[in-house]
């Protein structure tokens, strides 16, 4: 079924179609939740919370073509809300629990980088993670975070500059 038609049906309250709509971009949704929550358990909880909110509010969605960015914004907000509850920092530590075949020294570099990332301004860090870890473009990030594209660009470039400064430059120049 065509996406536009599916969104129409979902707006009329078809739960199964809504699930299928999300599953069409399951990779994007799951990974977006994962970079915030850092583990599969919490990522899945955030996704569950998101689909319920989307279902409750889909009749308010004016522009049907905005479904994906709108629902992803909801997902990000769910993640942030859960993180606030857990008082967890949005650090990327969890990812290194994956099996890592990269050489020893390289693994260290990543861990060090993550430590510096966690000291960055949270908004700059968020933009950098979405840009580099999820490979989203500026417009995509702007849509999800509901901020102008210019702001996304400046957060990323200032964030990278700060990151470079705080890491002393020498080792990572």
């Amino acid at each position, binding site marked *: 079924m065509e996406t536009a038609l599916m969104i129409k049906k979902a707006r009329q309250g078809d739960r199964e179609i809504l699930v299928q709509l999300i599953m069409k971009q399951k990779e994007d949704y799951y990974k977006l939740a994962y970079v915030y929550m850092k583990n599969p358990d919490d990522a899945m909880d955030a996704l569950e919370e998101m689909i319920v909110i989307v279902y409750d509010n889909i*009749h308010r969605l004016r522009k049907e073509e905005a479904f994906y960015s709108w629902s992803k914004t909801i997902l990000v907000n769910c993640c942030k809300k859960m993180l606030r509850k857990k008082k967890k920092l949005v650090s990327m530590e969890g990812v290194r629990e994956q099996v890592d075949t990269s050489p020893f020294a390289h693994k260290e570099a990543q861990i060090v980088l993550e430590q510096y990332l966690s000291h960055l301004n949270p908004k700059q860090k968020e933009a950098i993670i979405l840009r580099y870890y999820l490979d989203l473009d500026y417009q995509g990030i702007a849509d999800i975070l509901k901020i102008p594209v210019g702001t996304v660009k400046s957060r990323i470039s200032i964030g990278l500059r700060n990151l470079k400064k705080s890491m002393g430059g020498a080792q990572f120049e």
Partner: protein
Amino acid sequence: MNNIEEILGQKKNEIEQIPVPDEMEVRLRSALEKRGTNPRIRQANWKVKVAVLCILALVIGWQADTLAYYGKKLLGYDSIMNGTLQELNESGKGQSINKTYTYKDGTILTLDGIMLDDNQLLAYYTIKNSHGKLDFDKISLAPVMKGIVKEYMMNSSQGIINEKETEVKYIASFDSPYFFEKHLQLVCSLGKNGADETRSISFKLDRNQAMGHTLKQKLHKSAQIDETEIYFDTIMATPTTTIIKGTLQSPLELARDQILDKRFRPNELTVELIANGKKLDWQGAGLSTNVDGMTFEQRFDALPSNLNDLKLNLVSFSSEHDVHQVFALAKGDMKQSNQIKGQQIDFKKLYTSEGNTYLTISSEESVILTKVYLIIDGEKVSLEETIQNEYDKQPDGTIIHTRTLRFTGTGQEYQLDIRRMSYSKTYNKIIDIPIK
């Protein structure tokens, strides 16, 4: 700048490889089902309502079996349950299974029930012989819990045999299975001399009866010890047990010490967990060294429900150190006192007899020379044995261990080459844990 972007890019590759769990679709659907119909969308006509009622009736019908078992407690396990598990069992926690498999020789394996929380999966099972006494040589003491992606090895197990020796009841602890595991199999083999009969009992995990956790937080606490700084990273308390995890050395520190030949190998870390001023029962510990560094785990009993104060006590740490020191020795009685790695070791007497050389030394009880050679006229000789062990308690409570080391061969010039030694140091450092 390029290098930072490169590292960020590598992270992206890692994230790209993270698989989307198969259960995502089911979880999303059931989240919506739990939510019920959106009240703002009033579309459901009477047909839908009837359908919903029918489905509900079906669902309740299927659940009836489970409901009947719910709240039933496991019998006969009291003497191997600790107080915490007994309480949980009394209040009907856990999932009843009651599935049986009979082996060819008539031995019956019954999985009575399980308890699941975020720290562990406990399996309560019975092995019974209907014809007479059990042959314990045939019973495998290490069952395996098999899931979709991996086999969960048993961490610990306790059993009790009845008076007639016809039946044994076990409680075995496994790592908590991954969140997506739904069906598990308890695999148990019976037999000896390679003629094993391996059978399994499969069951469905009921996550609704899992007990989750009562406290889960990051600790961010550390304590300095001679060798390193100990980091206490996390605490995870569940209704059955409490696990504290931490780090002794990061991969970088480990690599550095390896290069500098200053490595230490941990023997034992003794930690107490004190809740509301009372020490919790210690249940076990683990230490491991791998590419993630040197990490540890300490297991204690469950936390009390009215928790208002939580403390850790770092009691002592024992480890083995590289020493690489050579000491010249004189024959006969000597009073040579040495400070090695801050530990006093006295050389007392060196004598020869029947082609052997004997060296008497004394030190505090925990000090052990783990790799030591005697150099006789320039030739390195390995330690044969340690004899004549004597322990003297000093007025201050320390215990001095005096023993004699025997080496094969005699000569004119003697040196003691200590390569490695281990010792324990008492710290008794109290660390407060704020409860969030």
